[in-house]
Each structure stands twice: as structure tokens, then as C-alpha cells.
């Protein structure tokens, strides 16, 4: 066991009054263990770097993740379900643009069983043809069900327009009906072999856990795996928008939808926290600029907001509003004006936006699920798990000048505007 001994680092996270113990096994697998005062529960988040960004055929990454818990070398799908039931474990999987994610929630006494199962699912999956075909059918049905949602259709079109069809960020994570149909088992297995390597994996465990015991158990379980070959992950070139442009899409819907996309830097850029703040100011909650304009002042929309996805490489600002088709021009003008006037900001409004962002962030960390994910996510992005502690401090240090500078640098340029209007 000694040969798998990890190096260990302990950092105290004062905003959550917890100590995170980070260890890196000799094979490169990263462990983050954070005991909290929440009793009886434990939460495991596993992030595997890669995600839909590394696939050739849209939807292949998602399909791979869906297949993982459907049978391993030792256990059938039903046996896995029985283990989960008997040990009161909940397991969920997810595929994102930059990573695959697996979560297990369990009573803390079931943690050893959960980690054993996790090892099997991650490193000894069956990935068989029968389940592949069944899962494809399910995914296609899900894609079909979503293909009637105007905002989902609009967001997909917006990503295509901003990133280009050849960029993985421009394609839907679930894939399309056509792309999913042609995914082969061989493709799934190649993707698995290339990225499910210990050095690409971060396991974050939070809750009622004993760090030294869990580190020892994880070293024993995961330490024996070979290091494997590291597949480099790249972020393909992304053409900047050379001019603003707009499109109109007619759909069978009752309302009209206005969607705006503006290219922004990703999470590793020094301006990321400032852009998070601008996003909070513009479109988060009932005190946002959009709420004040569209809901309170004009009374033309109750469904609106903005989103700044935490992506590696390049991200975007997504702004939307659902409106009465007759008032679409007014709403469009208001949205564009609100974005353009974000640098007209006084110290009081800026202070409130900063409080909102910090408060939202801290509130989100009160659940084990989010805490566990956030630690793993910052580690996976290269910011380091202790960014969880740095982030509120960085937000505190953002100045009014930083905000104005970022607005002028990123939000006064070109944008893509999509109008979805009822076909009738």
C-alpha cells in the first residue's frame, strides 16, 4: 500500500469553515476530501476532464457517460441497481462541454461501498452493444422532446452562430438525432480509453467523512491503476464575430423570444470574476437591470435573464426575454439598450451587484452537492480547488473601474441577435 502513498495538502476554507485535504495519487488521480458538520451524509463528485469538447461525433461523450453505470466486468446493470438500493445510494451522471460528471449521494456509513462501486463503474465498464442501441433510442426520444422548446432551439442556433459548426461548443451536448444514430461502440470505447485515465480524474468527497481513513481507502482502491497515456485536450480556434448580425426564426409558438449572444472570455481569463459580476448586474433576479426595465418599468416580460456559462477557452453572454409578439420591437430595443448602458453605473448599484454575486455564491455552497462539485470543478479547470475560497475575496476586490473597463472591452462590440416569432 505504501507505494500508492499520495502527497497531501491541507487548506482551511474559512467561508465554509472546513478543511479540504487534497492528495494526488502517484498515478495522477486527484482526491479532494472535505469533512463538514453535516452529519450522516456524504457526497461524491467525480469530474473527468474532456466532455463533449473532445468528441468527433456530437453526442458520443454523452452516450459514453450514460453507458458507464449499465454494467461492469463484475456486475450486471440490475446488480448495480441492487447495490445502490441496498446501500441507499443515489447515482447520477452528466456530460458537460468540458467534463464528464458522476455524483453519488449516500449515508456516510455506505461510503466504502460507494467508492468500490465507483471504481468498478469508472475503470471496468462493459460498454456493450445491446445497451448502446437501447440508450441511443432513449436519447433520441429526449432530443425529440426538447426539439419543440423555443428557447432550447434558439440557444442551440445561437451557439452555432457564435462558435461555428466545426467548433465543439457550437454543437448540442446531447447531439442530434442523425449524429446519435451513427455513433458506434468502437467510437465510444476509443473515447473512453483516451480520457478515462487517473490523471484526468478528480474525486471530491464532502460531508460526514474521516479524511485520513477515506484517503487511505481511496489510495488503496484507485492507487493500483496504471497511470495511462495522457490525451491532450485542446480548445479549437474560434472565429470572432466580425460584425453584428441578426436572424428571424418562425416557430409554432404562442410567444416571441429574443435571444442575444455576445462572445466573452472563459473561466481562466483574469476578467472572469468581473464578467460574473456584470452578468449578475444585468440579468440575475428581480433586482437586475433587465428586471427593472422589462418587468417593473415596461411590464412587458416576466421570463428573462442572462447567463454566462463557466467554460474553458471562450464563453459567451446569453441574454433572453419572452414577450408578447406585438411588443417584440420595444423589448428588443430595451435589451440592447440595457446591455449597452451597463457602464453607466454608480457606486451604490455596483455595491449591490457585488453583494448579490457574493451572497448567491455562498448560499449555493450550503448544499453538499454544490460544495463537492465546486471544489472539483475549480480543480479541473486549473484554477485550483481553493479558488472556492479566493472567489469571494476576488469579487470583494473588484472596483467600479474594473466593471466599466470590462463592459467597454467586451460588451460594446458585435453581437448576434435571434428573434423567434410565432409562425402564424
Amino acid at each position, binding site marked *: 500500500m505504501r507505494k500508492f502513498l499520495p502527497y497531501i495538502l491541507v487548506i482551511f476554507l474559512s467561508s465554509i469553515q*472546513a478543511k479540504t485535504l487534497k492528495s494526488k495519487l502517484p498515478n495522477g488521480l486527484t482526491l479532494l476530501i472535505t469533512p463538514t458538520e453535516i*452529519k*450522516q451524509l456524504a457526497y461524491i463528485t467525480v469530474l473527468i476532464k474532456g466532455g463533449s469538447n473532445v468528441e468527433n461525433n456530437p453526442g458520443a461523450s454523452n452516450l459514453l457517460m450514460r453507458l458507464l453505470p449499465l454494467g461492469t466486468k463484475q456486475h450486471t446493470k440490475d446488480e448495480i441497481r441492487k447495490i445502490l438500493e441496498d446501500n*441507499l445510494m443515489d447515482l447520477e451522471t452528466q456530460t458537460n462541454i468540458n467534463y464528464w460528471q458522476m455524483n453519488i449521494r449516500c*449515508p456516510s456509513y455506505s461510503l466504502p461501498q460507494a467508492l468500490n462501486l465507483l471504481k468498478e463503474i469508472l475503470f471496468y465498464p462493459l460498454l456493450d452493444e445491446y445497451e448502446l442501441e437501447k440508450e441511443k433510442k432513449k436519447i433520441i426520444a429526449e432530443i425529440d422532446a426538447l426539439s419543440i422548446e423555443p428557447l432550447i432551439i434558439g440557444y442551440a442556433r445561437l451557439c452555432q452562430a457564435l462558435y461555428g459548426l466545426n467548433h465543439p461548443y457550437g454543437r448540442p451536448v446531447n447531439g442530434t438525432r442523425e449524429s446519435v444514430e451513427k455513433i458506434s461502440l468502437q467510437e465510444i470505447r476509443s473515447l473512453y480509453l483516451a480520457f478515462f485515465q487517473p490523471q484526468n480524474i478528480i474525486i471530491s468527497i464532502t460531508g460526514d467523512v474521516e479524511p485520513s481513513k477515506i484517503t487511505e481507502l481511496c489510495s488503496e482502491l484507485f492507487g493500483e491503476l496504471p497511470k495511462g497515456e495522457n490525451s491532450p485536450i485542446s480548445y479549437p480556434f474560434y472565429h470572432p464575430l466580425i460584425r453584428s448580425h441578426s436572424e428571424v426564426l418562425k416557430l409554432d409558438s404562442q410567444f416571441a423570444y429574443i435571444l442575444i449572444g455576445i462572445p466573452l472570455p472563459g473561466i481562466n481569463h483574469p476578467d472572469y470574476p468581473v464578467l460574473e459580476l456584470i452578468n449578475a448586474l444585468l440579468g440575475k433576479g428581480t433586482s437586475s437591470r433587465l428586471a427593472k426595465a422589462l418587468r417593473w418599468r415596461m411590464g412587458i416580460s416576466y421570463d428573462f435573464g442572462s447567463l454566462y456559462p463557466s467554460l474553458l477557452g471562450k464563453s459567451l453572454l446569453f441574454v433572453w426575454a419572452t414577450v408578447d409578439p406585438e411588443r417584440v420591437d420595444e423589448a428588443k430595443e430595451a435589451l440592447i439598450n440595457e446591455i449597452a448602458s451597463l457602464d453607466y453605473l454608480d457606486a451604490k448599484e455596483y455595491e*449591490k451587484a457585488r453583494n448579490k*454575486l457574493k451572497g*448567491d455564491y455562498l*448560499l449555493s455552497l*450550503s448544499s453538499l452537492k454544490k460544495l463537492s462539485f465546486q471544489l472539483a470543478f475549480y480543480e479541473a479547470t486549473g484554477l485550483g480547488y481553493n479558488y472556492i475560497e479566493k472567489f469571494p475575496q476576488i469579487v470583494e476586490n473588484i472596483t467600479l473601474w474594473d466593471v466599466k473597463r470590462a463592459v467597454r472591452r467586451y460588451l460594446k462590440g458585435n453581437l448576434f441577435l435571434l428573434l423567434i416569432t410565432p409562425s402564424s
Partner: protein
Amino acid sequence: MIKRLLYLLTLSTLSLAFIPRERIILNTLPNGLRIILLPRNELKLVSIQLWMKIGSINDGDKPGLMHLVEHMLFNGSSKYPPGKIDETIEEMGGKISAETGQDFTYFSVDITPEFLPQAIDILSDLVQHPLFPEEELDREKRVVIAEIKGASNPFQEAAWRLTHLLFNNHPYGNPIPGSEETVKRITREDILSAWQLYYHPDKASLIVVGEFDPQNVIAEVEKAFGSWHNASLPTEPIQEEPTLKRILRASFPLKVNPSSNEVGARSYIALGFPAPGIDDIKGVIALDLLNQLIENGQLFENLKENGLVSEIRSFFLTQKHPSVFIIYASTWKDAIDEVEKEILAQLLQTIKSLDNDKLTKLKKSLLFSFYCSCETYSAQAHMLGFYESLADFSIACDYPGLIEAISLDEVKEKLAQFIRQDAYCLVSLIPPK
């Protein structure tokens, strides 16, 4: 034997109090407001919740009234004009929400500790000095009517039809938000009278969980709520519904179209069994255990495998007065009789065959669900407020111990009392041809 011993050991480890009673500080203001404080210091956060022992049960002949009062309380108070209550909390980095139940109404703020005094002040102004502006009432009614329309799905429709049939006289028979017709009829005067009649400190409890200094919080609460005049008038006692002693069946045309692709062909059924209120805590725990068993998917599996039902679930909420335990399923019109028979047979067989091993496993599963529902400060405050509104906050602390203490005989006896093949109600929603 060893396996059994291990189970018992883990069970007793699990039942360590999650909401520690010994850390709770209790105080009552002279006007009757109960203050329940649980200081915790793991997170720099605090949850403040004001729970009122009033809900749709107090609607009288105006279904939806207390729910609309709760909505209107957000539409301006003496210090905060319409729209400013949410905005002020949000600008301090917090979140505010509210909910009306049958037996309770609560207002909740989650925020960082530095803004705790302001949050207490906002909650106090919201309930004590509302403006109820006439011009906001029409807008709010539209919001509520949109909520009513948007929330409808066949299971909910079946459940409401069922409670309406079971509770002829008791106000549990009315839907919490009312209906489009009843909401439209509510006037500003109705709202004002309901608020004057029910919003008094002797019907309220303020729960605070998180990082704070208890003495400071008590001083802040006294400052904000101390002048809340207690002019509570005695209200009419609610007559309990007579216990159901026969089988009731009713069928209705399916009105709501869920978004699923398979809509149209399916029928929906809801089976309701009389259930105990909070006064019969052992009965409540027994039905919580049965609910857990069904929700774990360990019952009725063959109905799904045979294609007789596509979804089958149960619902049981602890309430102040005797209520109802519901099993609902989506099925086919021709299969309704068979599904009804099968559900009854399996329930009775499960109760009969329940043994200590099965009960121990079930208890563990229920305990885990309970702990998961107490994870955050907000959830712990909710749990304390919920039980305080029904009876006493201490049930939230004692619940794990109560699960552990109930015996196999007690569970069987209680389940046999409520799950009977000669006293239940069946509602079916049949799609039009």
C-alpha cells in the same frame, strides 16, 4: 445474526439527532411570538423563517384567499414600496420566498449574517404593515391564475378530485390556490379582513438557523416584532371530517393534457386512504414508512413489468388534522379495475409480511431521506417551522428517535387501521374518446 446486529448498530448511529434539541434556544415575546433559534457555525449563512399557523384551512368560503394574502404581502409595506421587498433582499445577496400550505404559511430569507438585522426588519414590516395596493391586486390575481393553470397535471388533478370527495365539510377539500373563478372573486376588503383576523403574533413563530449571536438576534426580534399588537380573536373551531367507512368511486373526464407524447390514451387513477393527523404520531410514522417503501420502487414492480401501469407513486404529507394517503398511477381505461385490485392486494400482503428485517431496512431508508431533507440551514429552519406550525418544533428533533422507537407490531397495527380494503376512495380520470 451478525448481519442483523450490524444493521442495528448502523441504525442507532444514524439516529443521532440531526437537529440537536439541546442547542435550540427558545424565547417567547410578551405578545406571544415564539422565537426558536438554532445557532450553527459551519457556514457564514443564516436562514430566517416566519411561520404562521394559518393556511388555506382558514379560507372560509373563499378558496384561495390565504394564498392570495401571502402573495399580496410582497406587494409593498410601509417601508418598502411594491417590488422593493424582493429587490432589497437580493441586493444584500439574499433570497426571499414564501409558501402557503393547508395548515401553514411561511416567509423565508436566506442571507449572510451581516444582513440579519435588515432581514428581520423586512419580514416584520411585510407582515405588520402591508399596503395591499388595489392596483397590484389585479396583477397578482393574474399571476396566481397563471400558477393554477401552469401547475395542473393529471396526477394533481386526480389528487384534488380525491381530496374534494373525501373532505365534504373540512377545508382540506379545497385546493390551496383556489380556482380561477374563486380567485377572481376575491376583493381587497377580503384580503384586508383575512389579514386583520389571522396575522397576529400568537399565531407566529420566528425560526433562525445559522451563524449569529442569540442575544443580539433576540434583541433585534424584540425591536422589530415587539410592537406587533396581539389582537387575535377566537376563530371558529374546524369540524373534523367523519372517518370514511365505505368505498367511494368516482370517474371524471381527463381535462389536462400533459406534455408527454403518449397523452391521450392514458387514464389516471388516485387511491386515497384515510390517514392520521399529527396527534397520532405513531400512525404518521407508520404511513411515512409505507410511503418510503413505495417511493423506493419496492412495491408494485410487477404492475409496471406487466405494462398495467407506466408510473406509480405515493404521497403523504403530515398534517394537523386527519388527512389522506394517496397512491396514484397512470394506466389504461380497461385496466383500472385490475390495477385497483392489485394495488390493494399488494398493500395488504406487504403489511402482513412485514418482518423485523424488512422494517429495519425501511427505517434506515426513511432516516436517510429525513437527513437529506435537513441538509441546509434553510431546510433545518423549514423542518422546525413546519412541525411548530402543526404541533411543536421538537418533533423535528425527535423524528429520528421516533422512527427508531416504533415497533413492528405498532407499525402493523397502524397500517391495518388506515389501509383497509373496505374504506378508501378511488378517483379515475378517463380521456375523452
